[in-house]
């Protein structure tokens, strides 16, 4: 009944150490934390890494197109047991399998990145600066100056929504009260997306410096990093960076929190619930986390990439950063996978087209037919949109979004109903189940697609648009609002694939 139990946040860590959700484990964790057994159990059973630990094979779209089924056969033949799971964030190395320690055991070659350049805001191939000059500038010039630079940079939140970052910062700054928190959202799990993974691995100091600047600016001392559970390596890089830069970080407490296998925890309020040791179910908004966030206190949460931009925004000026962009401010980490030559993370001016992005990745494979510009949530677009700027404001005009900028290219060997089906399976696996439009709706959509694929009778899809409308209108959070988009956009842009009577093939 206590809303904020100090020890409650420990239960997930303890459960992971127990390794299962047996009665004995639940009882021990309950006794150690004072959290009732039922609450421990209910929380544990929400998280895939606790419910189903062990080796896993990715069934994200990029992996499926690259041969998940063959990989599964191979593993089965080798006598290895595994779980088929949601996207593992390794689309550039598809198809992949992880062992129980989340180490890659089966994968393709390492993905590409942009070459070293001083004209990139983050510059994945660049060298780290352990002097934290941007933090020093912030301390020297004050919080107000930081906020001004942030505003003039035009930096938009890189987590997906693309709202100007200074809105959130200013909202938290003006909240009174002695306790505020900063959270780094490193729970990257959108299918097709793996940029934060690279950023944390290659430039962890950019992230830590950004967090310190944020905490300084809003007057917070406690900083939480919520890192996806399937990313132990990047999490370790961050921990190392915190140690290495200790002399700059004396006035901050860093708290590392590892995710436990739930995509929804990338949603900011679900992430907060998860840090508090609860089921990762999004909260109602309002109130927003900037008002009542972690432990009920004003909280500034930013994506890894947003935070990593702060170094150059302060060191080289907001105007410099703003000038990097093509249609919107700054450079952007674009992920690209699927049917392209060199999948990877490429830092390009914000607003490049698909063709420009694919050019950085060595060109298309086969005859491109469709693409997702920003992860599963952005749905599908026809290749005829290949020249459109990939930016935050333009893509919503055609019913899509830039989101996490995890672009996936699909060529004409792929059946769109099949592709839509697998994207929908992802959302069905990952919906928290809290609100009916999402919980029931996404299952309805997936089953309707299955029934259509099974017998080719398009009447199974009759109510799909209505259900999709309700999911967008009625769901609590963004997951439900977009979960029907893959199916709806595929039907909209590729009607021929959904009106058959079963004569065409649906191979992958």
């Amino acid at each position, binding site marked *: 009944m206590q809303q904020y139990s100090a020890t409650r946040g420990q239960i997930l860590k303890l459960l992971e150490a127990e390794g299962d959700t*047996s009665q004995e484990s*639940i009882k021990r964790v309950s006794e150690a934390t004072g959290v009732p057994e*039922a609450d421990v159990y209910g929380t544990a059973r929400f998280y895939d890494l606790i419910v189903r630990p062990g080796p896993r094979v990715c069934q994200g779209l990029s992996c499926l197109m690259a041969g998940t089924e063959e990989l599964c056969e191979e593993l089965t033949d080798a006598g290895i047991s595994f779980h088929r799971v949601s996207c593992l964030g390794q689309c550039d190395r598809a198809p992949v399998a992880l062992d129980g320690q989340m180490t890659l055991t089966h994968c393709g070659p390492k993905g590409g990145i942009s070459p070293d350049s001083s004209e990139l805001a983050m510059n994945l191939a660049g060298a780290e600066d352990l002097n934290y000059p941007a933090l020093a500038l912030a301390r020297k010039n004050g919080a107000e100056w930081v906020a001004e630079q942030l505003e003039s940079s035009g930096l938009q939140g890189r987590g997906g929504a693309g709202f100007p970052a200074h809105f959130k910062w200013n909202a938290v700054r003006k909240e009174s009260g002695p306790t505020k928190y900063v959270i780094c959202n490193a729970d990257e799990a959108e299918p097709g997306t793996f940029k934060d993974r690279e950023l944390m691995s290659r430039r962890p100091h950019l992230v830590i410096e950004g967090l310190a600047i944020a905490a300084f600016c809003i007057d917070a001392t406690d900083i939480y990093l919520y890192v996806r559970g399937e990313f132990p390596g990047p999490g370790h890089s961050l921990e190392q960076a915190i140690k290495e830069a200790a002399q700059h970080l004396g006035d901050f407490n860093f708290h590392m929190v590892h995710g436990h296998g739930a995509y929804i925890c990338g949603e900011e309020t679900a992430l907060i619930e998860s840090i508090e040791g609860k089921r990762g179910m999004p909260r109602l908004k309002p109130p927003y986390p900037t008002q009542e966030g972690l432990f009920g206190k004003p909280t500034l949460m930013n994506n890894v990439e947003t935070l990593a931009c702060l170094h150059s925004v302060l060191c080289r000026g907001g105007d410099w950063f703003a000038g990097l962009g093509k249609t919107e401010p700054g450079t952007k980490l674009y992920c690209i996978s699927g049917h392209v030559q060199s999948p990877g993370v490429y830092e390009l001016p914000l607003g490049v087209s698909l063709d420009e992005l694919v050019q950085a990745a060595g060109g298309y494979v086969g005859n491109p037919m469709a693409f997702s510009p920003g992860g599963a949530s952005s749905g599908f677009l026809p290749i005829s949109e290949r020249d459109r700027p990939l930016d935050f404001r333009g893509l919503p005009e055609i019913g899509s979004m830039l989101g996490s900028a995890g672009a996936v290219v699909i060529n004409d060997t792929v059946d769109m109903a099949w592709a839509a089906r697998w994207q929908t399976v992802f959302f069905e696996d990952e919906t928290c189940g809290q609100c*009916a439009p999402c919980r*029931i709706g996404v*299952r309805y959509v997936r089953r309707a697609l299955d029934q259509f694929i099974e017998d080719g009778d398009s009447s199974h899809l009759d109510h799909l648009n209505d259900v999709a409308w309700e999911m967008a209108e009625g769901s609590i959070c963004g997951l439900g609002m977009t979960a029907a988009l893959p199916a709806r956009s595929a039907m909209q842009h590729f009607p021929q694939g959904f009106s058959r009577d079963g004569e065409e093939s649906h191979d992958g």
Partner: protein
Amino acid sequence: MEKSPMTDKFDITLNGIRLQCESGETILDVAKRDGTYIPTLCHDPRLDPAGACRSCLVEIDGQRRLQPACAFKVTPDLNIHSESARVRKHRKILMSLYMADHGAPLETEHNGDQLTRMARDCGPLLALNPVEAPRAARPAEDNPYFTFDPSLCILCARCTRYCDEVEAVNAITLSERGASTTIATAGQRTLMDTSCELCGGCVDTCPTGALMEKKPAKLNQVNPRKVRTTCNYCGVGCQMDLNVVDDKVIKVSSPEPGTTLNDGNLCVKGRFAYDFIHHQDRLTSPMIRGTDGQLHEATWAEAIETAARGLLDVKERHGADSLGFISSSRCTGEENYMMQKLARAAFGTNNCHQCAAT
């Protein structure tokens, strides 16, 4: 005297009508006071708003998204629409989805099933195929009072929130996620093997009939006569309704939250321990001990006469203060008055007390 907290009063507009309200109130609070119906499923005034069932979503000018009336706090000059075309379309498809997830066809209405009634109010629904959610029941549930049918559950979480926020025993929880989400105990043990105190508040608050009492189900009766009375166990004085069919109490239900001092709550004794009323061991006939030393059935007239005579005899032999009259806190106020009046006025002694002077 205590200072009353500062309250702002202002107007909002609901469906074109100006209504006065106070800061801190939700849209649902204001609508209820005005008598405007907004459907709810996961709402219970005793619980923090969850906003999870989505049935109370309304349209608010200036808000991009529909907002839950149960949780959205009013601010001055809000313009709210609870019956717009958008809200109605939302409600209709939402109810269609619920019915695709819910095991009961519309024709059969379960005991206390708000959902089916609400779905009926939405007019013709979309004919969606059942989604066959894999919600699990507890495998070996053996508690004596209620059943849980996961196929009728809509996961409004009123039961789990009641168990946490009101009863605070945390016996049940939401478990699993997505379509598999269900109401569980720790390790799916039977309720008897948990911290559950069998208060039945979860059953009482369930809006769909997923949680049902076993006892009345046996009798399979509809529309019992309800008699409001005061619980006969402890000294809290909970108000409750005896549900009567054919001169038998078949169930005890609690009054609406907010209407009596127990706020819709009852404990295990108040809600379930009523079988004694019609128990076979009740005394049904006056008895008199005969000269053989055994008790024999008697008429009321004989028993009353024997009782009065016996007590008068003792008084005559040993004086009024050789008599003792033990009244009962189990009986009514009027009966206690009668007992002390009997002792004092009819037998002339103040030796009258009751079992618990404390």
